[in-house]
């Protein structure tokens, strides 16, 4: 007697033991495989601890959050940059990498200048090196105001 085409294993062609083993093997490995598929999936969907993508800080923040006569250093791509708001309220941005030995500069309110802590280099608020070892001025970046968002770009 010939079995007509079956789509499911229902006949008694193979011994029960082997059949069961194969079913268990199939089921077990299917479960294991699904687990190794779903675990990364759910881990991916869980929000990472750092919350949001590290902005390359082209947007520095709202102008209302930056007081006059202050400076803030932020990350700009792979390099640090500094945004200075002068006492008159003007916004200026420069590369914060000192042209002497690449330390990170900062704004000194008491000097009214940008200062490098490593060897006392000083830059004026146009980025020009005015005192100390720095041989060149700081690279000047462009500041754009979009509404009340401050955006810093390299070339505008």
């Amino acid at each position, binding site marked *: 007697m010939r079995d*007509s*085409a*079956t*789509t*499911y294993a229902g006949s008694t062609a193979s011994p029960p033991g082997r059949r069961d083993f194969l079913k268990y093997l199939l089921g077990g490995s299917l479960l294991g*495989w699904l687990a190794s598929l779903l675990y*990364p*999936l759910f*881990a*991916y*969907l*869980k929000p*990472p*601890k*750092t919350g949001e*993508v*590290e*902005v*390359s800080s*082209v*947007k520095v923040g709202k102008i209302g959050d930056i007081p006059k006569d202050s400076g803030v250093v932020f990350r700009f*791509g792979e390099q640090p940059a500094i945004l200075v708001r002068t006492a008159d309220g003007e916004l200026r941005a420069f590369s914060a990498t000192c042209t002497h030995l690449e330390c990170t500069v900062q704004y000194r309110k008491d000097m009214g200048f940008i200062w490098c802590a490593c060897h006392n280099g000083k830059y004026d608020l146009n980025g020009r090196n005015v005192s100390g070892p720095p041989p060149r001025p700081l690279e000047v970046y462009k500041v754009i105001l979009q509404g009340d968002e401050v955006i810093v770009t*390299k*070339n505008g």
Partner: protein
Amino acid sequence: MDQQLPRSRWFTWFDQRLQLEDLLHFLRKKSVPRHRHSVWYYFGGVTLFLFLIQVATGILLLLYYKGSEDLAFESIRFIMSKVEFGWLIRSIHSWSANLMILAALIHMFSVFFTRAYRFPRELTWLTGMLLFFLALGFGFSGYLLPWNELAFFATKVGTEIIGAVPVVGKPILEFLRGGGNVTGATLSRFFGFHAAVLPGVFTVILSIHLIFVQRQGMSEPLGTEPRAENEGKTMPFFPNFLLRDLLLWLIVLNVLVILAVFFPWELGKKADPFASAPAGIRPEWYFLFMFQTLKLLPAKILVIDGEIVGIAAFGLAGILWTLIPFWDRKSSRGERNRLINYVGVFVVMYIIVFTILGYLM
């Protein structure tokens, strides 16, 4: 004679509303011919599987990717470094894109050499070619999304070549770029194309393509006579071919994961539109043979720009290739057509040789 299997309550509930019996009957009847060229039947399914992988990983990436100029690169870096298994999803997406195009090429050439495009399957071939071009569009648009140096310049060069086409080239270039140059506007457009427009169109065309295949069954190469089902020269689609398909898909998935772990896709340097192009800019491998051809053409052929001649030649070749079911009458009549073999071998060799040249030079 159909065997009635015990039906579950679930099945009955759906069947009463949707008449699934007819569908089941049809599915049970589906068979796949077995002959020495059967192995090629798998490649359409592999392409489909890889597309599904792309959709899945693409949706996952969408949860974290940001498509603007200042955020795109950083968001991918974020995915690669901060999101758990983000590196895996991203690398799978990149590898699967390339493997999908490879699978599509193999599928297309196997259909070509087995003349499966002949009557009555011309429409299947046409929709398939359309799908292939859409897939290339996916590749081209997706490549820009990381906004890294290589992608930026590859897109610049690629759109410039399109722009060289007389009359329509310039408007198309501006449409693609969202302006005169490759900028953040280009990125936005490409993101829109890649994540919304192309998937929509692709899905529609793919459904049509699959419906045609279901409707007409598998084509058999000339020289292998169709036999009756119970002569052992076919196999049932359910469950035999399907299980084999699934097994192959499983292996392909594992290959993807292995590639993602051992050959992670690199991120490169962020694009700087004002920097000069680095040496060795070239498109992805599936465009390379055309790129290399254009590079080797002389500046002027007679009075026309060499580049335009090249573009026109490829355009013409593409059209002829797409219309092959209509000018290969012999195959439609069931006769051997050696010319097709020669054409096919020439095209395959050309692509391989020029792709290799593109990497060597």
